[in-house]
C-alpha cells in the first residue's frame, strides 16, 4: 500500500518524537528473533503483498478480505502516541492509521461479541523466529469490545509518513497506547469476535506476569521488576511512568470499579 493523503488525527502528543532510526531498529517482534536488533535484520523475509485478513466469529459479516478491501473506506490520519514497553522503555511514534472502531463496525459484531481477538501471521519460512517455540505461535492478542471501540485504539498502516516497515508490524497492526506494547499486535491476519475472553500468547507464557488487560500502571509492578519508571529511548534519565501511559482521561472510565491489581 502507498500512503496518500493523511490528515492530523486527535489525541496526538506534542512530546519530542523518538528518532525514526530508533523506531525502525529497536523492536520487540519475536517472530523475527528475540533480540531487539533482529527484526530490522530479518523482517525483509516477510511478504506483505498480497495480504489478506480473515474475519470470523460473532459477527454478521465475516469473510476473508484483501488488505485493499480492509483499507478502502478509511481515511488515514496521523496520531503521535506514546508507546510504553512492559520492559521499562518507551518511545513517541507518529503512527498513520484509522480508528479500529470504524473497521469493527463494518463486520457488524453481534450482541454476543464481547471480545475481539487478533492473530499474527504464522509462517516459519517468512518469520525465522518462529522456528523456536519461544512463544505459543501464532501470536495472539485481544481486547474487550469497549476497548476495541475506544477512539484511541488505532489500526496502523504506517509511521513517520511512510508505509509501515516490516519490523514494525506491516502491513496492518494494532496500536493501543494505554497498554503495554505487546498488546499492540503486529502483522494481523485474523480477527475473531468472541463471547469469552481470549488467552493471549503472553498470558500463556506467564499467567502470573502478563494479564489480559496489561494496562500501563506504575502502581502494579511486574512480578520481577518495577513499572514506576521508564527510559524514553534517546534520553538518559528515566521518567515517571504515567497511569494508563498518560491516557487516563480517555480510558479510565472503562475500568471504573475494577481492581486493577487483580485485573492486571
Amino acid at each position, binding site marked *: 500500500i502507498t500512503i496518500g493523503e493523511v490528515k492530523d488525527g486527535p489525541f496526538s502528543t506534542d512530546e519530542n518524537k523518538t*528518532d525514526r*532510526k*530508533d523506531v525502525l*531498529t*529497536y523492536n520487540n517482534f*519475536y517472530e523475527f528473533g*528475540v533480540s*531487539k*536488533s533482529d527484526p530490522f535484520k530479518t523482517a525483509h523475509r516477510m511478504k506483505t503483498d498480497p495480504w489478506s485478513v480473515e474475519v470470523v466469529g460473532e459477527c454478521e459479516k465475516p469473510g476473508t478480505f484483501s488488505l485493499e478491501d480492509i483499507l478502502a473506506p478509511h481515511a488515514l490520519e496521523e496520531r503521535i502516541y506514546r508507546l510504553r514497553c512492559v*520492559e521499562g*522503555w518507551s518511545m513517541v511514534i507518529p503512527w498513520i492509521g484509522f480508528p479500529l472502531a470504524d473497521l469493527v463496525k463494518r463486520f457488524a459484531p453481534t450482541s454476543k461479541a464481547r471480545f475481539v481477538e487478533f492473530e499474527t501471521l504464522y509462517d516459519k519460512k517468512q518469520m525465522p523466529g518462529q522456528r*523456536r517455540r*519461544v*512463544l505459543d505461535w501464532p501470536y495472539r492478542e485481544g481486547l474487550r469490545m469497549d476497548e476495541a471501540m475506544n477512539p484511541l485504539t488505532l489500526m496502523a498502516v504506517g509511521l513517520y509518513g511512510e508505509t509501515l516497515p516490516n519490523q514494525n508490524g506491516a502491513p496492518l497492526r494494532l496500536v493501543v497506547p494505554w497498554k503495554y506494547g505487546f498488546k499492540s499486535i503486529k502483522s494481523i491476519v485474523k480477527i475473531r469476535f468472541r463471547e469469552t475472553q481470549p488467552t493471549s500468547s503472553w498470558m500463556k*507464557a*506467564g499467567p502470573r506476569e502478563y494479564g489480559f488487560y496489561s494496562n500501563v500502571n506504575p502502581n502494579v*509492578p511486574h512480578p*520481577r*521488576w*518495577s513499572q*514506576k519508571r521508564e*527510559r524514553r*529511548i*534517546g534520553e*538518559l*534519565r*528515566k521518567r515517571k511512568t504515567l497511569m494508563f501511559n498518560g491516557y487516563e482521561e480517555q480510558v479510565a472510565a472503562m475500568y471504573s470499579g475494577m481492581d486493577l491489581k487483580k485485573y492486571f
Partner: protein
Amino acid sequence: MQKRILKPLVFLLCLLPVVVLVWQLLTDRLGANPIDEVADATGEWTLRFLLITLMATPIKRLFGWGWMVRVRRMLGIFAFFYATLHLVTYLWLDQFFDWGEIWLDILDRPFITIGMLAFVLLLPLVVTSNNMMMRRLGRNWKRLHRLAYVIPLLGVVHFWWLVKADVLEPLVYGGVLALLLLLRVRRKALTGRVAGENCAS
C-alpha cells in the same frame, strides 16, 4: 609461553571487553538503548569470567596446560571488575543513586536480591586474594574460596529470572557451570578426597 609475558598479555585480553564496550558507546554503536546494552554486556562478562576462572583446573588436568592456573587469581579479580561495572551501571544509570528505590528493589525483586547477594559474596574473595591473606587464613582460605562455585550459580539464576521468555542464554551458562561442577564431583568421587590445589578451582 614465556612466563614474563603471560600475565601482561592475559591482563590486556581481560580488559578487551570493556575497551570494546567503551568504544562502541562513544561511537554510538550500541543501538537505541545503549544503557541496557552496557548493563547486559557487563553482566554477561561477569558470568563468563566467573566460569573461565573455574576452568583453570580442569583444563590443566585434561590438557596439561598450566598457564590458566597461574593467572587464575587475575581472572577471578576481573570477574569482580566486571561485576562492579555491572553494579555501577545499575546504581547510576538505571536508578541514579535513588537509595530508597534501590533498597525496595533489593527487597522486592528476587533477581536483584540474588544479584546483590552474588556481588556481596565476591567481596571476601577479592579481599583475601593475596598471599598474605592466604597464609593467614590457612585451611579456611580454601573453605572460603569454595564460594567461587556458589557465586556463578547465583549469577545464572539472576540472569534466568530476568529474561522474559527466551531462557536459552542463561541455560547455556547454566550448562557450562553444571559441566564444570560435574567434573569436580567426579574427580572427588574417583580420588575419594579433595586434592588440595583444586579446592577453589
